[in-house]
């Protein structure tokens, strides 16, 4: 029986380099399978865990989190037949039958369901190679530790969690009331020095974190026999640092009007930096992207012929329907920036003690520089981004199953409107489980929002 349903589709790319991401992704998954076939150790890890140590210790990292994104986009066997549900939905059903609630993170349900099938290969891109170990972290959300621990239990492999306790909002910059006053100062500081606004990690936090990083290296050695080598680690950290500098340059280029690159491309081009940091291929990708954006800025090329209003996207993406990032283009609206996972300055290189450097970086990230988890940081990140990228409205992803993203949304909407007169509109659904998506509701809200912004722009 033929099925007709709400249309979900990938986004239209404006930037040429963004079109290289999908082949890049496929190569990574192929390389992971290849590594496994050659007997190289494979680790399952998570997005916010710094990757450099894996490359330095010759362990191939694979990310169930990213794989869940793939399952949200693809159907079984790679078919385009829309009557076949997306793999994320198939896997989520399996997890839910086992007793996992539907309010749990979509990534977790897809990933757990996939593992529960007992056949890791029966999934897009050949599935995931079975891991030799699983390493995760506790910060950003509770789930990424516990879900990966559950997978380690099911797959019966060694497990390690890098515990980074969530930092609070005790930094004056994030205190309610102080935010607005400091805004002009924040915008004058060069991007590379913005870490000065965050309180430095306390000694005991640094000590605890560094102890654990050293344990990660020992753990990898115990499981694989591969030894830690500081010179090799420094090589990888150098490359990662230089790649991050490129990404910071790209963030500056994206401030141009018209925006040379939008969110559709931004969320796609974040992949090499987020998942393959510390590799030459990631570095080279951003050189290309940076060069293309320089050219686009020089030529005044934008996402839409004429920018009538500029939008910010808050949160992760509805991966099953990335075409939403092109939705406002028919009104002349462009999604110009997405703060999520966008790099901020790394601490200066410390080749004599790279674990200390990595610990400082991890704690800064925990403080909100990569995926702001605490409310104060999350609100301030959006407020700063709105001003930097000259945005007149924001779409806030009320990710109903992603707690760290959804928790600050109400505060963000309130602060943007009350303090700065910037309107926002919510999109309520899951990251990858399209059963939660209401096209009718979404389009109605977006259309009304566009009308509001156009009226304001006149």
């Amino acid at each position: 029986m033929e099925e007709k349903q709400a249309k979900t589709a990938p986004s239209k790319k404006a930037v040429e380099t963004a079109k290289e991401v999908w082949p890049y992704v496929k190569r990574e998954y192929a390389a992971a399978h290849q590594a496994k076939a050659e007997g190289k150790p494979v680790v399952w890890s998570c997005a916010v865990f710094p990757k450099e140590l894996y490359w330095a210790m010759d362990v191939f990292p694979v990310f169930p989190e990213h794989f869940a994104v793939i399952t949200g986009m693809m159907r079984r066997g790679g078919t385009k037949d829309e009557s076949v549900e997306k793999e994320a939905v198939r896997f989520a059903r399996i997890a839910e039958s086992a007793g996992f609630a539907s309010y749990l993170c979509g990534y977790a349900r897809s990933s757990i369901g996939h593992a529960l099938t007992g056949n890791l290969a029966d999934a897009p891109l050949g599935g995931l190679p079975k891991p030799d170990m699983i390493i995760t972290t506790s910060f950003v959300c509770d789930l990424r530790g516990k879900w990966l621990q559950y997978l380690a239990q099911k797959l019966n492999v060694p497990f390690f969690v890098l515990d980074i306790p969530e930092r609070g909002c005790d930094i004056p910059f994030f205190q309610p009331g102080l935010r607005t006053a400091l805004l002009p100062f924040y915008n004058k500081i060069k991007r590379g020095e913005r870490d000065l606004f965050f309180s430095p990690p306390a000694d005991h936090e640094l000590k605890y974190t560094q102890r654990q990083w050293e344990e990660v290296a020992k753990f990898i050695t115990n499981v694989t026999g591969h030894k830690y080598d500081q010179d090799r680690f420094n090589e990888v950290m150098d490359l990662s640092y230089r790649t991050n500098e490129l990404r910071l340059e790209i963030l500056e280029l994206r401030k141009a009007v018209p925006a040379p690159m939008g969110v559709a491309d931004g969320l796609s081009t974040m992949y090499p930096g987020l998942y393959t940091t510390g590799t030459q291929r990631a570095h080279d990708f951003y050189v290309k992207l940076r060069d293309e954006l320089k050219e686009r800025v020089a030529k005044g090329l934008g996402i839409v012929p004429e920018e009538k209003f500029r939008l910010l996207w808050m949160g992760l993406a509805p991966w099953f329907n990335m075409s939403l990032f092109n939705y406002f283009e028919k009104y002349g609206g462009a999604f110009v920036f997405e703060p999520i996972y966008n790099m901020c300055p790394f601490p200066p290189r410390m080749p004599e003690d790279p674990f200390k450097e990595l610990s400082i970086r991890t704690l800064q990230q925990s403080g909100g520089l990569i995926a702001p988890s605490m409310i104060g940081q999350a609100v301030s990140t959006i407020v700063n981004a709105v001003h930097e990228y000259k945005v007149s409205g924001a779409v806030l992803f009320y990710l109903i199953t992603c707690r760290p993203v959804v928790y600050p949304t109400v505060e963000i909407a309130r602060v943007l409107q009350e303090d700065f007169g910037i309107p926002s509109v919510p999109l309520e659904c899951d990251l990858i489980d399209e059963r939660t998506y209401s096209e009718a509701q979404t389009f109605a809200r977006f259309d009304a929002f566009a009308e509001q912004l156009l009226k304001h722009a006149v």
Partner: protein
Amino acid sequence: MLSAGIDVGQHAIKVVLLEENIVLAYQNMVTEVDADTGARQALENTLKEANTSFDRIQRIVSTGLGRKEVSFSHLQRTQETCAARGAYLVLGKACTVLDGGAGGCRAVKVGHGGKVLDFASNSKCASGTGSFLQIACEVLQIDLAKLDMLAGQADGIAKVSTTCAVFAESAIISNVHRGFSIEDICAGICDSVATRLLEVLSRAGIEKDVFFCGGVAQSKTITRTLERRLGATIHVPTYPLLTTALGAALCIS
């Protein structure tokens, strides 16, 4: 021994009069009075049909949402227990009962003798229940029998992909505006209900035999969809609305 099972549901009261495992008479009475009065009336109608009297009844067991309001029952038992007993009597073997009513749907894993082994339900949300079908009927301005008939004639399914009944209403309207045929829209609604029923079923654990009862079981389209998806035969009793009342009549303290 003469026993009576009274199932006080959201919209109707069902009564079964049972003697030595034989049904003497039954009632399915839609009522708007309070549960106690309604139960009394329904029982009286049943007794009249069976040509017998109240004082002959040795045991009255009430079940359903309003079971505690039946002042004259000797025992109250939950729908899970009663659906299990009723299904076991009809089918004669271990099974999973799927009971789709107006107020909720439940799945009960039934062992030998009608013993409940496990159960799952979805009563908070309207999805997968008779209430959801009723909302759909109101939106389309047709009755349930017509919805089922039209769904059976569809050659496509206008999917109602969202899990929330509130959103589903706007999704159905959206499907109408997009110009899908009424048959395909009805098929989409039945498909959505079947999906939710399957989710509840899988949480209880699916036995080889599935026994489908309750108001929702009157839909042939939903039954066929379940069969197709499970790859198994679904047993639907002749009187799907009466299984729980029958089970109640079988309960002993």
